[in-house]
């Protein structure tokens, strides 16, 4: 009741909140990131459309890094564990996150998945997000970097149609470039031009998981990211300097 005049009206109390709506996710993501940094583990959030070639790029990454880096992956999909099975066959320690109907991974899903897979000895952890160019961009998972895989068959203007996803990308891998001879209307330059219009700091590597073209540039980019994850840990560990 209104105390001041006894009119019988209920009190309306405005509260200035000013909190991030996803602050709970941010908190869990910070917790994940703390774990990763503590273990000098480079965690990469891999996003892209369904069929962009995310799994194929990770398979090629495993082939290229064999004996040089210990890598793991969490594969998010609405249903099936096909991707995790493929990744394991490629020598990646992998676990599935089956989201049911959710169109993205969140930090809590990643945290739960880490309880079901040994990860603390890994050098790299790839979180293969649900195939989707919209929703995954909104959720911090605790990663060191966002990588978006964009295949040449998706069209040159995809970055302009889905600007938020590409705006958040630290690196875009243009995949399936071995198909370019069959796609006379698609130009890598024009894809790059679209990316430069939406990425604040455009970094792009063109790759083919099939032929291996560009994969060494991607590996070098990954190695460069290691310095962002607790450099002191890398110096102390010593033995990690294997590239």
């Amino acid at each position, binding site marked *: *009741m209104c105390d001041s005049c006894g009119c019988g009206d*209920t*009190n*309306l*109390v*405005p*509260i*200035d*909140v*000013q*909190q*991030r*709506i*996803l*602050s*709970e*996710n941010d908190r869990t993501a910070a917790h994940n990131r703390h774990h990763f940094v503590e273990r000098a583990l480079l965690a990469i959030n891999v996003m892209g459309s369904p069929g962009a070639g995310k799994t194929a790029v990770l398979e090629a990454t495993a082939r290229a890094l064999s004996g040089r880096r210990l890598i793991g992956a969490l594969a998010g999909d609405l249903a099936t564990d096909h991707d995790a099975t493929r990744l394991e066959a490629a020598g990646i320690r992998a676990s599935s996150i089956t989201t049911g109907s*959710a*169109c*993205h991974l*969140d930090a809590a899903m990643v945290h739960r998945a880490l309880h079901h897979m040994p990860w603390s000895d890994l050098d790299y952890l790839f979180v293969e997000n649900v195939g989707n160019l*919209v*929703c995954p*961009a*909104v*959720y911090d998972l605790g990663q060191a970097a966002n990588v978006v895989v964009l295949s040449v068959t998706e069209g040159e203007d995809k970055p302009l149609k889905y*600007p*938020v*996803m590409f*705006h958040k990308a630290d690196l875009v891998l243009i995949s399936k470039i071995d198909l370019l001879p069959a796609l006379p209307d698609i130009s890598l330059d024009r894809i790059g031009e679209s990316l430069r219009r939406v990425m604040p700091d455009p970094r792009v590597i063109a790759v083919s998981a099939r032929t291996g073209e560009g994969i060494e540039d991607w590996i070098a980019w990954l190695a460069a990211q290691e310095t962002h994850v607790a450099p002191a840990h890398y110096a102390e560990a010593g033995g990690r300097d294997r590239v």
Partner: protein
Amino acid sequence: MHEYSIVQALYDKVAAHAAARQATRVHEVRVRIGELSGVDVGLLETAWRTFRVHTICETAPMEVDRVPGDDLVLERIVLEVP
């Protein structure tokens, strides 16, 4: 369609503030949504109207301030307290 997940997180926040003050009703919820937040305001409003039914927010409109950048912020709520 992650807007329902966003609304779930938004509702949890509003409900926690309401419970902390023993509020009987929520009168208004005001949010700030950035152009680059990855959230579609129309879908968010639809999700809010669907989600609020049979909750303490049943009659609370969601006011949206659209801004540049990637903000996704609960700015202000108005609570009815005894």
